[in-house]
């Protein structure tokens, strides 16, 4: 059951502030289901590296040159020899200065705010057909190579747990991390809300050949 001492500690910690009044509030281990995860078990799945400070990056290192070799073997088929992207697979390079354009190109070089995020993403999700199969060294090497393709690091750069968090990404200071919405404060007008003469259609989906069919078998409409 819930002890008053426990309540005091939790409140002091500023957590579960409503906990003491809640019938659900329990001590850690109250149910006793499952098993306490051992250090070895945690290590097996504890793969994350944080973007901003690189916390969680493992030992190991990789050069730009080594990265070029791994990239040619593991990545180029989809992302293109120089990160230009094949088909509709993502570009990894380019788009610098395009973010205010009508057709912005967000890439690692033009958009990504944190270099360790690149290590983390390659490590957890790439290559797409065989994710999380590369060694930490190869992931470091790929990270170095892709950063170098984007002129974010020099040719002699060696990626490791110390160097990656120090890489200053071009777009790093362009993000705000608190949600400023609501964007609009419209009032719910009910009648005569606009001059009927001002109501005009600015765009229509009629006649555009973009919509797959919604009856019969699945559409196999080809890329435009």
């Amino acid at each position, binding site marked *: 059951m819930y002890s008053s001492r426990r309540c005091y500690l939790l409140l002091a910690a500023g957590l579960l502030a409503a906990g003491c009044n809640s019938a659900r*509030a329990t001590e850690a281990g109250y149910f006793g289901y499952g098993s306490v*995860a051992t250090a070895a078990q945690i290590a097996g799945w504890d793969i994350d590296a944080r973007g901003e400070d690189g916390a969680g990056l493992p030992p190991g290192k990789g050069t730009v040159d080594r990265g070029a070799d791994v990239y040619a073997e593991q990545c180029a088929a989809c992302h293109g020899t120089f990160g230009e992207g094949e088909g509709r697979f993502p570009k990894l390079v380019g788009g610098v200065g395009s973010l205010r354009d009508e057709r912005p190109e967000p890439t690692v070089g033009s958009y990504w705010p944190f270099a360790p995020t690149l290590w983390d993403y390659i490590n957890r999700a790439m290559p797409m057909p065989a994710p999380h199969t590369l060694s930490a060294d190869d992931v470091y090497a790929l990270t170095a190579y892709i950063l170098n393709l984007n002129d974010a690091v020099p040719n002699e750069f060696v990626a490791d747990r110390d160097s990656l968090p120090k890489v200053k990404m071009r777009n790093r200071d362009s993000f705000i991390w608190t949600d400023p*919405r609501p964007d609009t404060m419209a009032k719910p007008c009910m009648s005569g809300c606009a001059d009927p003469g001002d109501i005009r259609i600015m765009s229509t989906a009629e006649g555009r050949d973009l919509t797959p069919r919604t009856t019969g078998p699945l559409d196999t409409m080809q890329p435009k």
Partner: protein
Amino acid sequence: MWPQGEENVRHNPLRSKAVLSDLASADAPLGRRRFLTLGAALTGSLALGGKPAIADPAPEAPPADAPWSQSIGAGVVDRPYGRPADTEASVIRRNVPWLTASAESSVSFSPLQELHGIITPNGLFFERHHAGRPDIDPAQHKLMIHGLVERPLLLTMKDILRFPQITRIHFIECPANGGMNWRAAQMNSLQFSHGMISCAEWTGVRLSTLLEETGVRKEAKWAMVEGADGAHMNRSLPLDKCLDDCLVVYAQNGEALRPEQGYPLRLVVPGWEGNVNIKWLRRIKLGDKPWHSREETSKYTDLMPDGTSRGFTWLIDAKSVITFPCPEKPLDGPGLYEIRGLAWTGNGKVKRVDVSMDGGVNWQSARPHEPVLSKALTKFTLPWRWDGRPALLASRVIDETGYVQPTIAQLRQQRGSNSVYHNNSIQTWQVKPDGSVFNVQLA
């Protein structure tokens, strides 16, 4: 007797002559033996794979028994799980083949034009995968909770099922729903313009219950939630939200989660953008700062007209759409219709929905249908006598915080058109005199 003669009978495999004569001579109640004979006859005719012949009755013909009214139907467990009628075969999730590089990292859309309630059937719930749908053995699936906890835990599915149960109805919407209409009206379809939303009854355990079981260390402010799919899909969530209303669920509309919805275990983050509702949930790690994973930096951030970007915009703002009429469901001549639609908000409950038939000059309040639940789809209807003249139909939701769904023009003033995500603007359907309906955007 069937008025159109013997021919129709022969074409109906459920009414083979042997079965009919058997039935005709059955003065006495059918005994077990007769049932067995009948069963064999029916099975035999079904195995031939013929379809029941459905003759088009002449318009002047009086109502008469159809073949299915003069034959015996399929028995129980003919379809042990069950499936929709064969004639509903078009009601399926659909994708836009040109939109994504591969089906494994892609999205499918719910056929909202064919749905009539606030609950999405499990087979029609929209899909979004980042590395395809894994087929997971629940006996091997585990949830690990670690990091800034007092007692790191490893839970099997059996363990998770023992915790106190909770059931809630919530929508999940991909923040890119409507993304293809940011620049202009592009998709002439309700399914493809709004189909990345679905709503289900979810059953599982409160995330707060699991975090009370592990204990939370005082430095913890964030949680990283991660899936067991190939993408190891992960997002950061503020601890406050985790302790507020997040659910770790194993059931959807009363049955086990579908594999494409995260079987055997997923997170539900009520009212927040779809991709934080991590599917195939295997790990929750508490920390003092957010992770800034690829899926919350490179993707799922909102690019603004000045070139800056917003991150951690989790909330689904209030949104609504008319589901009838719509491009897939045009009008059939002038007369009295019921306009139908759906409204929702991540901020809580829908307070009111207004409908305009003239492109937003005048509005009338529609009737919201019970139940009106927090962070769930709400259905609304409004009778409308269509005179056959051109109309511009639109719906506008007001949520319990007083927030009013904006027009696309109002939203673009703030957000430009490069956002990709969080387009919650009013949808306008243009109705032409022939009853056809088109997706349009107004000045």
